[in-house]
Each structure stands twice: as C-alpha cells, then as structure tokens.
C-alpha cells in the first residue's frame, strides 16, 4: 500500500472471542477512516442480508472504529478517530450514522500498527480490548464496569504497563519503547446502561457524542479499547509533510501561543485548554460554556459529564447565552430562541411551563428541583440517567423517546418545544446556514460541519460579491456559481437562485462530499480544514500527496467523497430511508427556526443585489424543502421518487457491487 496506511485492520468478534484481521488494501478505494468503515459496515452488516437493521443494540450491529492514512504522520489535525454503526440516538428509527473524536487514540492506533478495529457480536460479560502493538487480547472488565471514565483509564493504564510514574521514564513494549501512556477509548456508566445520549470518551476531556455509539459499546458489554504502540509509519515524502506544515503556519496570527492552550496530536490549532478541570484537557474550547451559569460550576459540571460518559452538547443548559429575540417566534419560546437545544433546553421548557416537578405531570424525582442551575442538580441528573432511576430512565432514552413515554411527543414536536432539527438529534447551529440544516435530514442528525460559516460571512475587505466570486473558485468541482451561496429564503428568488434552488443543491453536495472524504475519511478536524478563505483546497492535497504519494486531483478526491456519501445513502436506503422519511421537525417551518448569526450573517441576493443578512426571521417552506430534495437527488443521481441511488450512479462511482443487494431488496433507484 501507499504511505500512511499500516495495511491491516483488527476484526474482533465479542460473541465468539475471535480476533482476526482485515486487509486494509481491500478498502483503499474508500480512502480511510469513515469511508473504509462505511464499506466494512456494508460488507459485514448489510450485504449478508441476515439483519433487518432496526435495533442498534442487536449483536449483529457492526462497529468500525477507524483511522485515516494521514494520522500519526505529522500532518496536523488529521488524527481523528471515526466511529460508525446503526445509531441508537436517532428517532424514530435507528439510522446509520457516524461520529468522531480527536485526542490521541487514533494516532496511537496507527502507531500500534492498525488502520482501525471492527467490533462485532456481543460479549457475555463485560470486557475490554487490550492492544499492545500487534498483540490483541479480550480482557475481563468485571472490575472496571461501573467506574467513571477517568478511574477506568487510570486502572487500565496501570494494568497495561505504566509501571513508572508519569513523565519519569521510558518503558519497553516488545522491542520498542515509549514515554507515552496507553490511549483508551471507553464508555462511562451512562454508556453501560445504554443511554442513547452516551458519548465515547478518550483521555480526560475528549468525546464523540454524535450517534450515541457509546451505547453500542454498552450493548456489546464493551467497556474500553486500550492501545499503545511504538511502530513507525512510512510516508511518501517526509520533507514534504514538514514543508506543508510550515507553509500553513505562515498565516499571520493563525495560531494561539498563550499559556494554557492545548491541541490534539499533532495539531496546530491549540483550540483546547489545559484546564485544571477535565483533567488537563478540554473537548474543545466550547465545553466550558455548557452546563451551568457559573463558570466554576460549569467546568466542574463538564468534568462530571465526561466522567459519566456524556457529552455536554447533548445536555446543553446554557439557554441564555445562545439565544436571541425573534419577532414572531411562538409564545412558548418566551421571546428567546436557543441556537443549540438538546436535553437541557427541553427540561427548561417543561419546568417553565409547570409540567416538570415533584408530583407534577412529569415527576422530577429524584432531581433536586430546588437546586436548578446549581452543580448539585447537574450531578443528580447525571446520576439519575446513569442509573436510570426515576425520571432518569426516560431521559436516558433521549428527548423524543422521553416525550413519547410522557404522552407529549406530538404536542411538543408540533409546537416546536422539541427543538431537535431532525432525527431527534440535538440542534446545533443549523439556520441560517441552510446547508447545515439540509445535512441534518440527508444524513441522520448533526453534521457538525462549520466549513461555510465564515467564508460566506460579511467580508472584511472588498464587496460581498467579490468575496463570493473568490469562494466559488475554490469549491471544486462546483465552481463559478456564486448563487450556491445565496441564502434568499423568501419569495421568487428563494426558488430561482436561493435556498430551494438547484444552486443550493450544489453547495450542500460540496459540503457532504468534502466532509465525507476530507473530514471523515482523511480525518481532518473540521475546525482545522477546510479553510475556504485561505488555504483550501491546496493545503489538503499537499498533505495528502506528501503522506500517500498519490497524485489525485482535488476533484478526484471529491469524487471519492461522493462515492462514500452515496454508499452511506445506500446503507440508509437498505434500512428504510426514503424521500418521505427525511424531513425536519416542525419548528424548522415556523418563525423562530433561525438562531443568531455570527460572522456578519449570510449572503442574500434579491432584486439584483447582494447583501449580508443576519436572517433572524429565516424559516423554511415545506414545498421549498420538497423542491430542494428534487434538485439534490437529481444532482446526486438518486431517483426523484424515493431518493434511492440508481444503477448508473452506483456503477459510475465504482459501487457496482452494491447494485444487486439494492435491486434484490426492491430499493434500486429507477433510472
């Protein structure tokens, strides 16, 4: 294989206790990371046709945990670990979905000599997987089950070989030696009890919350995967990697140098914190915001979240910080619209409506409601969810399933109180950046992709039109169409060149193809690349070529991205996805759908002129969204009626082997 790959993937069956390997070369056409994971999921979970893919907790659910070829090569920001499986988080159905996390687990996986690990089956008792270079063992986790994520990591570190005190000595692993600790991907008590909100944790403050894949760990009785390695990664052009880094670092003021910043391995950005909470590292700079109105409590609450194994994005309580007065917003918003609204927002709504409390319609037991807003309340909430006590049992199932249990689903969904953009997933930005919103329905929840937010913002110099023209040169292969960036949402222009037009379909497709290849498969942190205002797309291909030696053009890599995106689509089609099932929650069609905009808002073209607009009154039109789907399906080569990939599309993308499975299931798109 080319540089960057180790050439083999671990395959662990927890039911049979078998440990085998998969040849990475078999999946090289999918790039790495999520691309490979998606293809492996197809081969092991979909193609055999033995599973209906309804229940994420079925032992037949396959969990590829994958790393990309650029990880552990010195390329910054590319060490993320991708996780995919049938997601327990999505509502009303379990959808195929992915999440990823940074830190050092992915890079260590590579240094141990592996491009990933694929977990199948279900252990009959709690286990953890111990990877030390080429040695892979399934270990008993009886003593670890029930422990928080920090204590578990400390115990495993001691067991694996941390015989000397931190920082004092090298220790030997086989013929190699290292000063590093093992890197551990694991679940906390909330994952053990299969909360659909559970996040995978690594290190002291890094989490993958999207998709609830930690609950899949729990369902498989898998507490943790530990890995440590001392191998070398071969790269095509070591000098080229360093030259690319130095080139990127020439941007003035790009990178922070103040004491206390931190990075993933081996990134440039420093957008973490070496905080005294979270055990010395945060998930990202955002996490400190999220749990309480007092910063000190907030840090401590976030630390508790990580220890329990829950990402704070899922339990967002900071309603006031990200809210805006929206003219015409429904009364239930009380004049405030939160940008990110998950469990915390919904609980707050129920409380202020007088529905939640001791002995009320929704009994809050065992939550100390008189301590609302305090750290003690947050901790009690986590404990209730982890142990599924009282209201915690319903909340562990996520907002929609909890509302369903309380008989409030239809009412709260239709009123907009359940402010979850699509598939029951925590809302995160979306409007007015509609490409983000569309990705929610076309995928299976939060794409967590900020790529266009700053580039379409109000330019600091030159006109908006000039800025968009420059941008449109970078969005290969959909170049020279600045109406891709038109966010007109009202009147004729919305359909002609705005958010319901074929132009917008191109922007959404670009973001999905880019994300599929560069962020999910080459594993570049999406906070790192793309940089559509400066380095992209040159930077991506510089790094890619230096590591792999491949001469793929940027357009070629985008084609691989489309291939991965289409394969992902095929998996969803196999478990029931169609045009009719992918839709927004009702609030997206109501005033108040949009939150506040940063970067000066979004570009709007109306009456022959461009302007930047904060668009606080943006909301969607049902027919417009339906028309958008038609344009998008046509662009992707999916059939108009169902949104199913056609034979020609699959074959053109090199996915011909998926045709038979889809056809036999009656789900091949009509030509």
């Amino acid at each position, binding site marked *: 294989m080319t540089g960057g790959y180790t050439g083999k993937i671990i395959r662990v069956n927890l039911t049979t206790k078998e440990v085998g390997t998969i040849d990475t070369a078999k999946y090289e056409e999918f790039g790495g990371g999520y691309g490979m994971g998606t293809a492996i999921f197809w081969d092991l979970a979909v193609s055999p046709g033995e599973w209906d893919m309804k229940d994420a907790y079925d032992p037949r659910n396959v969990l590829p945990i994958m790393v990309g070829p650029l990880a*552990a090569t*010195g390329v910054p920001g590319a060490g993320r670990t991708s996780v995919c499986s049938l997601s327990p988080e999505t509502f009303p159905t379990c959808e195929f979905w992915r999440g990823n996390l940074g830190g*050092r687990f992915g890079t260590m996986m590579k*240094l141990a000599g592996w491009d990933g690990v694929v977990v199948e089956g279900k252990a009959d008792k709690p286990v953890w997987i111990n990877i030390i270079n080429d040695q892979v063992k399934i270990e008993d986790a009886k003593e670890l089950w029930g422990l928080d994520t920090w204590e578990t990591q*400390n115990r495993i*570190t001691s067991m694996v070989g*941390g015989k000397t005190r*931190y*920082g*004092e*000595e*090298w220790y030997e692993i086989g013929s*190699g*030696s290292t*000063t*590093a*600790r093992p890197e551990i991907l694991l679940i906390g008590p909330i994952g053990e009890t299969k909360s659909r909100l559970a996040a995978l944790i690594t*290190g*002291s403050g890094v989490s993958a919350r999207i998709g609830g894949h930690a609950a899949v760990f729990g369902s498989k009785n898998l507490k943790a995967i530990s890995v440590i390695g*001392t191998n*070398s*990664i071969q*790269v095509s052009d*070591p*000098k080229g*990697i*360093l030259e690319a880094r*130095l080139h990127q*670092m020439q941007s003035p003021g790009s990178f*922070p*140098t*103040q*004491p*206390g*910043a*931190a*990075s*993933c*391995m*081996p*990134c*440039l*950005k*420093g957008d*973490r914190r*070496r905080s005294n909470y979270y*055990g*010395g*590292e945060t998930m990202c*700079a955002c996490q400190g*915001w999220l749990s309480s109105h007092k910063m000190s409590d907030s840090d401590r609450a976030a630390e508790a979240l990580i220890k329990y194994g829950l990402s704070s994005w899922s339990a967002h309580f900071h309603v006031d*910080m*990200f809210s*805006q*007065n929206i003219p015409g917003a429904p009364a239930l918003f009380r004049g405030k619209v939160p940008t990110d609204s998950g469990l915390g927002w919904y609980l707050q709504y129920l409380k202020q409506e007088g529905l939640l409390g001791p002995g009320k319609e929704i009994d809050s037991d065992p939550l100390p409601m008189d301590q609302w807003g305090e750290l003690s309340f947050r901790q009690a909430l986590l404990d209730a969810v982890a142990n599924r006590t009282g209201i915690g049992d319903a909340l562990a199932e996520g907002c929609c399933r909890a509302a369903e249990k309380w008989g409030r689903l239809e009412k709260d969904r239709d009123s907009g109180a359940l402010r979850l953009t699509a598939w029951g997933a925590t809302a995160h930005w979306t409007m007015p950046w509609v490409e983000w919103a569309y990705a929610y329905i076309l995928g299976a929840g939060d794409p967590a992709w900020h790529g266009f937010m700053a580039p379409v913002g109000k330019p600091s110099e030159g006109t908006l039109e000039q800025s968009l023209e420059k941008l449109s040169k970078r969005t290969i292969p959909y170049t020279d169409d600045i109406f891709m960036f038109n966010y007109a949402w009202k009147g004729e222009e919305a359909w002609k060149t705005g958010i319901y037009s074929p132009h917008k379909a191109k922007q959404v497709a670009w973001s999905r193809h880019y994300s599929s290849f560069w962020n999910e498969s080459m594993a570049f942190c999406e906070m790192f690349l793309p940089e559509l205002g400066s380095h992209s797309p040159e930077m991506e291909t510089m790094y890619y070529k230096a590591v792999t030696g491949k001469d793929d053009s940027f357009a070629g890599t985008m084609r691989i991205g489309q291939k991965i995106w289409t394969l992902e689509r095929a998996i969803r089609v196999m478990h029931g996805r169609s045009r009719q099932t992918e839709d927004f929650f009702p609030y997206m069609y109501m005033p108040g759908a949009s939150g*506040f*905009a*940063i970067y000066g808002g979004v570009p709007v073209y109306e009456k022959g002129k461009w302007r930047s607009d*904060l668009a*606080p009154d943006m909301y969607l039109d049902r027919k417009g969204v339906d028309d958008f789907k038609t344009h998008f399906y046509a662009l992707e080569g999916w059939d108009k009626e169902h949104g199913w990939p056609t034979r020609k599309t699959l074959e053109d993308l090199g996915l011909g082997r998926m045709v038979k499975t889809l056809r036999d299931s009656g789900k091949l798109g009509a030509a």
Partner: protein
Amino acid sequence: MTKSKKVEGKKESVSRRDFLKTGSTVIAAGALGVYASGSTSTALANPDPVEAPSYAPSTGYIVWDSRLCLGCQSCMYACSLTHEGVANPSLSRIQIIRDAPSFTKYPYDITMSVCRQCVTPICVQNCPTGACYVDTENGNVRRIDPNECIGCGTCIESCPQRPHRTVWNPEKDISMKCDLCVDAPYWGREGGPNGYQACVEICPAKALKLVHEPPLQTDVTGYDVDLAPPPPPPRNFMNFFQQNSDDSKKKGE
C-alpha cells in the same frame, strides 16, 4: 550522512561484542534523578578518582516553556521525520509527555523532555567507543555517530535526566540523541547551532527556542523559561461569541 571530524570524546574503537565481554565499567548516573553538573555527578559516573575531562560547551541549546506547550507532539513527529524519514514518536529525540489520563493539573500535566546539550556531557564521557562525541565542527554539539555506535546503551544508562534524553532505536539497534538537526537528511534546511531545528520551527506554540549561551545547569529552571508573547486583549472564544450575540441582537432589532 555527513561525518564531521571529531576532536573531543574520540576513543579507540570498541565493538558491542568486546564491550559486553569485558563488561561495563560505567556506573549509571541515572540514579541521581536530577542532574547536578560538575564534580559530583562526574565522580559518580567515573569510578576512578581522576579529574573529569572538560569539554567545549555547545554553542546551541534548546530551551522551552512548558506552560506554552500545546501537548500536540508536533516536535516529536518533526524529529523522527527529519532524522529517520518515518513518523514515530518513539524514535524522537525530544519527548513531550502528557499526563492524560492520569490527570495531573496544569501546568504540571506536560513534561517537556529535551536534550540539554550538557556542559559536562556524561553521555560523551562514558561512551566506550567515542561514538558519542563533541562535534567541534558544528558548534560543539553533543552527537552520536550512528556508524560507530555499538548499541551498548551506556549513554542511555548514563543520562542523568528522567526520562533519559538519549533514545534507543530498535530498528537500527543503536542509540540516538538530539544533534540540533546537524544531520537531519529529511529536513530541508541547514541545521546545527547556527541553523534551524525542525522541532523549534514546527512548534505552533513557539514553546521551543534555540539559545546560544549555556543555561543554568543546576536544575530545570535554566531550560524551562518564559517564552510567552505579551498577553492579547481580553478576548477569548467564549466572549467572542457573546460579543457577536450582542451585535446580532442590536442589528436584529
């Protein structure tokens, strides 16, 4: 590889086999824990009560600011890429050790382990073959000649720092140490005390710096120094969004 003329530290050739056969006459100075320069450690490292040899000091030293370090380990990748042509932190001559998941509090959560180019280089002093030497043609940098290293590990045993700064290369069965990029075949720049070091240049936090005067040798304070830039205006990620929120509200009204 460019081989420099060696003046100091040169000894008669000894093979690994000869060395192992006759046994080491060197006492590991590692038991000292913290390096104290001068006669104490030298005397312990040399069983014979002879005066310690003196060496011309290096004209280059890498100092660091452990508060600034991002823990990204970019320097480790830069080191192994430039010297060995592969990516492998275990082959890096600089080690950045993060204490997650042991959760030591900032600023003690990161240990920066950088070769000190000691004024009294015990690794040079104790090397039985002269493979570890003072390179007088390159600013007196303390180096290991990979062609003459017999892999006895004496320099590793001798290094008084914890973790030891001399690094074992299991792929070549030799020891390695920081050479300030004098011999870094995959580094596209001139290295050495008057040139550029990959770790220093690659560090995004500017937490490493080359200096030319010997730092204080008695403890770590000579090397772990304040390299922080002046603090920026009080504007962080959090109040950036808050500010935008406030602006949005004003403009939206």
